[in-house]
């Protein structure tokens, strides 16, 4: 039986909660705003998808500010022996920034395992680990959690994902010329790069039997999952999409599904030239050129890095619940390669019951999750 999702919540640039994010996505608009946390004068762009009201402070990191309202309702409510998997790329890296700028903070405070300790402490849970795999971090954590449940090794796994917009990260992406000055335009002919975003979220996965005996509501299922590597390049994807194809095929195999079962695709869709093209090549191969609706949330909420996979899983669940496929924001001039696949408007999909969610990241990592009601 597939692992089931019994709890899910997010905070994104559209605010706290899944509903504001879903409603924001349906507007087809961007939640990008001017960065005032650090000086962006010399960078490629000055905008990011920032969570409203989030401000650096001396005593609480940005990601802990994001996580506290999400974790507080969960404390004391988690099943016994829940494993917490923290998924992030840089976590509380601003503590390292402050160390370098002369503050009395040890750089080791920025270790992801330190953040894990803070998260498990807030939750009152003793059992946890970190999973980090570039921008696939939280989808890899969901895959790992699903594998632990499917094998019977665990009955409950809480995935906690987070990443913040920091000077550390922003300066790095700018140095790689990876940012679109006009804002991310996934699958657009004129796309020039991504928009950095921040988000945090939680998903509680359980075995179906454990969920039933605990009388937990089932929000959806992780029916299949797959992870692969391109073994090709540190920052760029394989041009032919073969790595992503393998991840999708693994996920379909685990779900015992044929490609025809997939109703829509939540693409990684960063807005970089190579990523979006690579994904479309992979989709063409898997689906034998049989077009189906593809969307990216990153033109609206930015690229939330390690949190992206978890946020997109929750949006996929919302899409299934609403029977609506959200639009891709900032899609003005559809790339010829994406013609027929992507759309500017929300699409009603009353018969849709399977979403494929894909992510890819630095180092050539790829993930595919198959999500069902």
């Amino acid at each position, binding site marked *: 039986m597939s692992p089931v999702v019994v709890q899910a919540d997010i905070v994104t640039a559209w605010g706290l909660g899944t509903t504001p994010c879903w409603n924001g996505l349906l507007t087809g608009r961007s939640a990008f705003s001017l960065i005032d946390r650090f000086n962006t004068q010399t960078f490629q762009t000055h905008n990011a998808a920032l969570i409203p009201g989030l401000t650096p402070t001396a005593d609480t990191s940005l990601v802990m500010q994001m996580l506290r309202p999400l974790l507080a309702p969960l404390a004391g409510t988690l099943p016994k022996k829940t494993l917490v998997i923290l998924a992030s790329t840089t976590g509380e890296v601003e503590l390292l920034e402050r160390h370098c700028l002369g503050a009395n903070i040890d750089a080791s405070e*920025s*270790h992801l395992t330190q953040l894990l300790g803070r998260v498990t402490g807030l939750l009152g849970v003793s059992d946890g680990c970190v*999973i980090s795999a570039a921008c696939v971090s939280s989808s890899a954590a969901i895959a*790992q959690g699903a594998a632990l449940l499917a094998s019977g090794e665990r009955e409950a796994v809480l995935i906690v994902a987070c990443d913040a917009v920091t000077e550390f990260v922003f300066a790095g992406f700018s*140095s790689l010329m990876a940012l679109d000055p006009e804002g991310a335009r996934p699958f657009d002919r004129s796309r020039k790069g991504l928009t950095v975003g921040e988000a945090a979220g939680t998903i509680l996965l359980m075995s179906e039997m454990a969920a039933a005996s605990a009388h937990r509501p089932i929000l959806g299922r992780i029916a299949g999952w797959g992870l692969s590597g391109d*073994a090709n390049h540190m920052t760029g994807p394989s041009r032919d999409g073969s790595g992503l194809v393998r991840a999708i095929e693994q996920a379909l195999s685990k779900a015992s599904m044929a490609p025809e079962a997939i109703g829509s695709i939540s693409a990684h869709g960063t807005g970089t030239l190579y990523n979006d093209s690579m994904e479309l090549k992979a989709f063409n191969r898997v689906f034998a050129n049989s077009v189906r609706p593809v969307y990216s949330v990153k033109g609206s909420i930015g690229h939330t890095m390690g949190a992206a996979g978890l946020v997109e899983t929750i949006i996929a669940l919302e899409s299934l619940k609403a029977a609506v496929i959200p639009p891709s924001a900032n899609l003005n001039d559809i790339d010829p390669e994406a013609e027929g696949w992507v759309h500017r408007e929300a699409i009603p999909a009353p018969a849709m019951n399977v979403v494929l969610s894909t992510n890819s990241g630095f180092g*050539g990592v790829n993930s595919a999750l198959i999500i069902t009601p």
Partner: protein
Amino acid sequence: MKTTDSLHIRGVGWLNASAWGGGLCGEGESGPASWDGLWKRNEIFSNPVKNTGRFDVATRQTLVAVALALRDASRCGNASRGRGTALVGVSHAGSTASNLAYFNDYLGAGRILARGNLFIYTLPSSPLAETAIHFGFEGAMVYAGFTGNETASLLLTARTLLVDGAPDVMAIRVTGEEAIAFWMSHTDVASGLNLSLDEIMARNGSDEPAETVALRLHQLMKGNGNLCA
């Protein structure tokens, strides 16, 4: 799904400040020659490693430990593999050293322009990515972090990947002072060691030195009557 009660070790590579070697076959060298010089030895790296000058210490240690694990398996007659090898790595400090190098360089340059070739090593998974690229590992690739015994947790995570369908897994622990890589697979391969977690390591709650773990595995290999080349 396959089930794996015990851990099947095909090869082990390890290094520290003064020595390096293979775990199962017991091969090793010690003395002033640094493990860092192993790049140039084609019996260790059959294909030249590119861009070594830009690698951080964690990446260099990861690559060498993995090369030694593959060599260890080869000496035990068990080197064949497909391209689906998964990678899981653990290091308590993650990418902190590289993060400091990148951000201090950025600050030193007037906080105007960062260096992309330093930024790409600021992910904890970056050493694994370079390793996957060099050796052609096309399976899952994840950095894992734990608060308790890292080696035990690492091996259990590798086992989960195997049970989940990975044909084989390279599991690496790097500390900055030393590194150890375990090449693991399902039990249906020709040679290697089938061991429980307790046999691989002394379960005393803390991590043992890589060389100690490697020596224990070599003794177990000899005790099983397995001979290496």
